[in-house]
């Protein structure tokens, strides 16, 4: 606890600096409203229910898209590592789409599925799948031949062996890929909501900003930052538990 306090003390310094710069009038209040005011706005937003509604909507989209990306991405990655035809089919597609800026898909998914949840979920699914696929693929490809043989000689069927040996072998790299996917999902979520949405945290940021309500706008920006941070920390906690077998 104390260690964590010391570790995150630079954040406290940053918060104080923010407050000071705003209070001394070094920058205009529309560019940077004082942190204390932002915090007051945050509680107002919380009380009005706007923040909860927006967060719930965003987390639902992000969570669903991410879950689909993880399941489908891992399946494709492992299938690519284990069956040559799947690899031959998928490799060029993965190579082609991996470096593509996924935000370019925002208008495409809107054309397909409209302004609601569907387009965001599809966008996050498509945008987050490839890091998961690549993690699963690299991890599965490196699985030890002797472990596979051991499982087979103990009576595991081929499919069983994929689940019992290849998936856990791929786990460290797969979990790394998922971490990248989580970060990406926040980027895609907020940017797509900023551009085309009728609810959600990104929509709230854009809406408040357009109206010149900078204090609450900053409050929502901070909320997004905190959610991203909390998601990553929670995820890393889970990873440590799942990979407890590593020395």
């Amino acid at each position: 606890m104390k260690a964590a306090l010391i570790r995150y003390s630079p954040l406290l310094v940053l918060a104080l600096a923010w407050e000071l710069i705003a209070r001394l009038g070094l920058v205009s209040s529309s560019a940077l409203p004082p942190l204390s005011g932002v915090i007051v706005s945050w509680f107002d937003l919380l009380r009005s229910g706007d923040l909860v509604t927006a967060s719930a909507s965003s987390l639902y989209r992000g969570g669903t898209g991410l879950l689909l990306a993880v399941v489908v991405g891992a399946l494709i990655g492992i299938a690519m590592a284990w069956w040559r035809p799947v690899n031959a089919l998928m490799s060029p597609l993965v190579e082609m789409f991996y470096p593509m800026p996924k935000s370019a898909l925002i208008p495409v998914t809107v054309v397909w599925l409209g302004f609601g949840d569907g387009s965001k979920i599809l966008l996050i699914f498509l945008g987050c799948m490839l890091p998961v696929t690549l993690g699963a693929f690299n991890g599965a490809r490196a699985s030890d031949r002797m472990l596979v043989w051991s499982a087979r000689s103990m009576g595991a069927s081929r499919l069983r062996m994929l689940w019992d040996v290849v998936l856990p072998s791929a786990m460290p790299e797969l979990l790394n890929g998922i971490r990248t996917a989580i970060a990406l999902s926040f980027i895609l979520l907020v940017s797509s909501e900023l551009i085309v949405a009728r609810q959600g945290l990104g929509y709230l940021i854009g809406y408040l900003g357009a109206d010149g309500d900078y204090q609450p706008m900053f409050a929502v920006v901070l909320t997004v930052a905190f959610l991203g941070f909390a998601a990553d920390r929670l995820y890393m906690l889970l990873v440590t538990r799942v990979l407890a077998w590593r020395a």
Partner: protein
Amino acid sequence: MAQIVVEGLRHMYRPPRGRPVLALEDVSLEVREREFLALLGPSGCGKSTLLYLIGGFLPVEGGRIAVEGRTVAAPGPDRGIVFQHFALFPWKTVRGNILYGLERQGMPRAERERRAQQFIDLVGLTGFEDSFPSQLSGGMKQRTAIARTLAFDPKILLMDEPFGALDAQTRHLMQSELLGIWQRTPKTVIFVTHDVQEAVYLADRVAVMSARPGRIKALVDTRLDKNDKNIFRAKHFVDKVDELWTLVRDEAIKAERKAP
């Protein structure tokens, strides 16, 4: 009739890059039930490849392998294997590793827990049941691997230089323990090694393999009184080691010259 029959086996090793290499040429071998056979040869002679083929891990390209009259086409729980580098599931504990084969065999839960414990005790790992492989010494890892394979009770035990990664003292200890286990629970063992003394000490019969392409160069009977405490100094033991060493030395020199 022999339990394991290898006839005219031929195998090409195909490296990911470069030309295929003839690893085994016209290998024929018969192994009797409950026999302890050592496959002895210089490194790269294909002895491990022969073991993997018998295990069903590599496809048979030329010739035939039969176990109890049935042609080998895939791995199966009648042939358990122990590898040099243990091949334990690193994400499973000692107990979890040993339970795995029993789960795959569909043994009821209570029975497999009991059996796992029995083999943990047998190899002297009591107290380490919940340790992960990364927390164990090399010797303990190999004990776990041996217990894992013995626990599901294969008729045939394939061992691929199982003590090759261990330090000298541990290796010695494990050799005598393996002999003890084998005398108590007789199984057919095929034991790959390049250590002449180990082969003579453990095996009933030693198949000496030639340098690449691997062939069976000689079959030497090594049935000695293995329970003799001073066996390593006994004349008949030393003579056997000498005899085999002469056979292997020529091949080791040939292998050295061929090495890239």
